[in-house]
């Protein structure tokens, strides 16, 4: 069973007199334990697609099934709830909260969620951040920040992990490490994950690859 399934998604943006058809009838699915990558040229609609998957944006038409529930046209309030409890985000710039210490970044998510809490410290230690637990984000390197962001995405045990160019601000060595960590956690914890990336050198770490071009999405590498 797919954790996430997109059926015939169309997304239009108004563009002056015309409409800019960014996604033209896109379908997609990702299973438990599967790490999928989406690649494509700049402006192709990768981020748009990811925001639709992440209940941040409603498609113009089509269905988004997350654990068999249609989330494509929920209220803002319901969307927020879904994001909190069922989806873990990893952003390009890690986007940590500047005034929270590293452990508190995770604690906060556990505070606002009703889910059974995991051991935040243990998770951070597994990601090699033992010595950083009481630091503020501004004292961390880019790679360390991104590892914290990964921990934050996993802490609430979501079914789906979404990452938008998580390696964009890192050099290739660090970038590869970060993707490896995501891969390891996805497989170990049997989650579904979707990563948008420009970096072709990490594609050997993912299970499936999708390419988006001219608003169309096609699978170019199978499991």
């Amino acid at each position, binding site marked *: 069973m797919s954790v996430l399934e997109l059926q015939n998604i169309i997304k239009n943006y108004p563009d002056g007199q015309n409409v800019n058809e960014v996604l033209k009838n896109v379908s997609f699915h990702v299973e438990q334990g599967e790490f999928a990558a989406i690649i494509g040229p700049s402006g192709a609609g990768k981020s748009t697609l990811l925001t639709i998957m992440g209940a941040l944006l409603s498609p113009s038409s089509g269905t988004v099934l997350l654990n068999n529930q249609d989330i494509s046209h929920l209220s803002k309030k319901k969307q927020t709830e879904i994001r909190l409890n069922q989806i873990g985000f990893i952003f390009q710039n890690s*986007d940590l909260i500047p005034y*929270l210490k590293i452990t508190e970044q995770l604690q906060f998510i556990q505070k606002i969620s009703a889910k059974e809490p995991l051991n935040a410290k243990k998770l951070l230690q597994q990601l090699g951040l033992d010595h950083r637990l009481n630091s503020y984000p501004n004292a961390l390197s880019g790679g360390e920040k991104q590892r914290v962001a990964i921990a934050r995405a996993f802490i609430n045990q979501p079914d789906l992990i979404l990452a938008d160019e998580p390696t964009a601000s890192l050099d290739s060595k660090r970038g590869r490490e970060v993707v490896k960590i995501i891969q390891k956690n996805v497989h170990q914890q049997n989650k579904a994950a979707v990563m948008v990336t420009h970096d072709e050198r990490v594609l050997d770490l993912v299970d499936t690859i999708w390419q988006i071009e001219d608003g169309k999405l096609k699978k170019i590498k199978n499991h």
Partner: protein
Amino acid sequence: MYLTLKELRHDKLKFSALGLIIFLIVFLVLFITGLANGLANDSGSAIKETPAKTFILQKGSQARLNRSNLTEQDWQKFHSQYHNDAAKLSVAQMTIQKANNADKKTDITYFILDRSSFLAPTALKSQTDNHVYVSRKLEAEGYKKDDIFKDSSSGNTFKIAGFVNNESYSHAPVIYLNTHQAQNILPTSKQFNAIALKQKLAKNSKYQVISQQTLINNIPGYSTEQSSLYLMIGFLYLISLFVLAVFFYIINLQKISDFGTLKALGTKTSYLVQHVLTEMGLLSGIAILISFGITYLIKIKMPASMPFSLTLPTLLATGLLFLFIALLSALLSLIKVLKIDPINAIGGNN
């Protein structure tokens, strides 16, 4: 609360500066309020602290005691109806000097009353011969108990039998005289200025009937002082509303991308609203408490010649009003926070 405390801890400097600004504004408001109240007391406390609710003046006297003249016949009318709930009152603004020092003169106000009338402070009941009770404000002028002073125009001398509270009228300390003592000072002592009544009375076609507050409002200088001070206070509240709104807004503006991330991660908007309100409320609350403390110190240290008065209810009411203003400002600054689209967190747009 979790986010609030962590943020206050992390950005101590920023929030201390904001707290300092709030403190300064609240302190200024409290100080001017205290001054306004002090001046009001200085102007009218001798009237305000009596139990009189209504004053009967001569028709056409424009609510001014010194323009009103009533006669014994007028008195009989009211006395027969209200008995001891009516009292004669004359007010005379004069000058006194120390018996042995002609250079130092002090402006005072004589309150001329019947010794037994309800207007008279209790101490006055025992006032005999040339012994008089005077407002404690005279102490600041160097007068002590048992000092002898001279009425500058008539040359009569009196001995200070004791001090009553800080009663004053039109910024001058009050000296209480009974009708008998006043005879040598005021030639027309058969006449008097007004009749005070304990009751509320609406109208009487033959006289001008006014409330206690109306009388105080018409004490020379009272209304101008009060209205200009209260205008200042009003503007201070208005200015603080906008200044704080702008400060809060700028502070929230700096955090827009954090708010976007928090929303994307699943934080409810209501949680963020609560976070901002708690933050600003806490900050203002502390600033208000500190200004309470400083104002209290100032109140103690203030010289007696400088009128300053702030009662606990006024203090608390000012604090609450200010807290309300601060929260209102925070709400105004929140408009932006409500509109933040969590979508901005994706795509590296921030």
